[in-house]
């Protein structure tokens, strides 16, 4: 990215102070969201989200697999994000690997509550917010619902048998202009709404330690339940104020950023803090409540866009 001059930096910071950003938005306004579903026909579900100039594609593939022995009645989800060099020339070869890994693990944390996906994220919380007092930590911990985000037990086929659904979520960043995490979160939510899981018949005769025979139906499908899937809201601190949906220029001026993933019930499913500047604990609480407020609007907007896109799809097919 071309560097910003001192005048440009002052302009960006000053604008944010006065609640009038460079593109005319207020501090807590998102860019226009453009959503399309079902764009990858060979995937079980897919979506493309454009947030201004940020363009991401998410695809979901459903395959049969063996459950983790420690969690026999839960399915598995793996999230992988690829940063295409079309977004940034520096992503060529292995250049985009660092960002890809950061985004993949941030998404895993936000949507699954950790790598295993089966537990709460208490441990992650203590690591992320070092400056928190104990009573604050307890307050935050109570907000966490166990196994929030994508419900892994819905991916179990039959309890006790050694088959489950494996969900492979792939993200691709085609064009980047800041706020990739929110865009990816929205794309994954839309792709999951678009996902259909085939109905299966498991043979009941096989003994419980062997892999049973599974008959995958080609005709009957179940819609994946996405009511618990959260949206991710990133609040970027520039100067003394927080903004939502930062562009690349605004992100270059940030001191810190907090990404909160909240679902429809208002439960926090994950939290990530980036950036070098330390935050006072009360500021963190303020950001979380601001994020909750913004997430309601974002959630409604996304749900209506997804419904419109699905209706479009149905009309076409």
């Amino acid at each position, binding site marked *: 990215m071309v560097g910003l001059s001192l005048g440009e930096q002052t302009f960006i910071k000053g604008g944010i102070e006065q609640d009038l950003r460079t593109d005319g938005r207020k501090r807590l306004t998102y860019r226009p969201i453009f959503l399309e579903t079902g764009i990858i026909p060979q995937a079980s579900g897919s979506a493309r989200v454009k947030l201004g100039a940020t363009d991401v594609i998410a*695809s979901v593939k459903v395959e049969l697999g063996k459950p983790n022995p420690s969690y026999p009645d839960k399915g598995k989800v793996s999230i992988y994000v690829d940063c*295409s060099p079309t977004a940034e020339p520096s992503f060529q070869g292995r250049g985009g690997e660092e960002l890809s890994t950061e985004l993949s693990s941030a998404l895993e944390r936000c949507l699954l509550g950790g790598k295993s996906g089966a537990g709460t994220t208490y441990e992650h919380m203590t690591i992320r917010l070092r400056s928190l007092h104990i009573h604050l930590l307890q307050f935050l911990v109570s907000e966490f619902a166990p196994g929030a985000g994508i419900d892994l037990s819905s991916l179990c086929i039959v309890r006790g048998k050694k088959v489950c659904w494996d969900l492979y979520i792939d993200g691709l960043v085609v064009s980047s202009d800041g706020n990739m995490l929110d865009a990816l979160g929205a794309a994954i939510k839309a792709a999951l709404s678009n996902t259909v899981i085939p109905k299966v018949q498991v043979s009941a005769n096989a003994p419980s330690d062997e892999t049973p025979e599974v008959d995958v139906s080609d005709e009957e499908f179940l819609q994946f339940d996405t009511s618990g899937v959260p949206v991710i809201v990133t609040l970027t601190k520039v100067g003394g104020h927080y903004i939502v949906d930062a562009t690349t220029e605004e992100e270059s001026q940030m001191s810190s950023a907090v990404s909160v993933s909240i679902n429809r019930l208002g439960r926090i499913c994950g939290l990530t803090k980036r950036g070098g500047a330390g935050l006072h604990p009360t500021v963190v609480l303020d950001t979380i409540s601001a994020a909750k407020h913004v997430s309601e609007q974002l959630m409604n907007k996304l749900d209506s866009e997804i419904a419109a896109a699905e209706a479009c799809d149905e009309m076409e097919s």
Partner: protein
Amino acid sequence: MEFVNPEGLRLDGRRPMEMRQLRAEIGVVSKADGSAVFEMGNTKVIAAVYGPREVQNRSQQSNDEALVRCEYSMANFSTGDRMRKPKGDRRSTEISMVIRQTMEACILTHLMPRSQIDIFVQVLQADGGTRSACINAATLALADAGIPMTDIVTSCSAGFLNGTPLLDLNYVEDSAGGPDVTVGILPKLDKVTLLQMDSKLQMETFETVMQLATEGCKAVASYIREVLLENTKQLESRRGV
């Protein structure tokens, strides 16, 4: 397996000399200097061009001409079975090199010494003919970036199955094990810049198949010209000309 049924129709209902439906759009990646999406049937490819810009690796800088670099990558979800490694495998490296050499032939590199032009191609959906779709998309992206070229480069593939030459193979026909000839031409200058073939073919049949692929290239060229003309008209109207 029957690739051409007795009525003369292929697996997807096309005639042997019929190309798949083409669709192109310019300017999809706003951050890039030039970009385009090119679809040939179910094969969908995005190309982005960054340049001419300062050379990143000083040791490779050339005082007489611009450096052209290209990277080809496939998305995880582009093929039927999920791919593990999107880039860096041998096929991607080979196709990157092929695209680079083809585009280098048509760019007027001596007009931009000590600079670098990056062409990035990302495959979103792969259904046969990805090489050709990439070259066509790269041509449009270079035109969108305003990089001077001697002529546009267009590419198309053709094969030979069940005794019939077939134009523009899709994935099923391509994996049948028959020959696959990919041709890239400069349509106005009537010169061939890319010629690759898999498997084996008799000499006379090869001439027919290559001729068919060249015809396909010319059809793509007229479509690309239409798209570029439409794009220029839009730019004119936006500027109020």
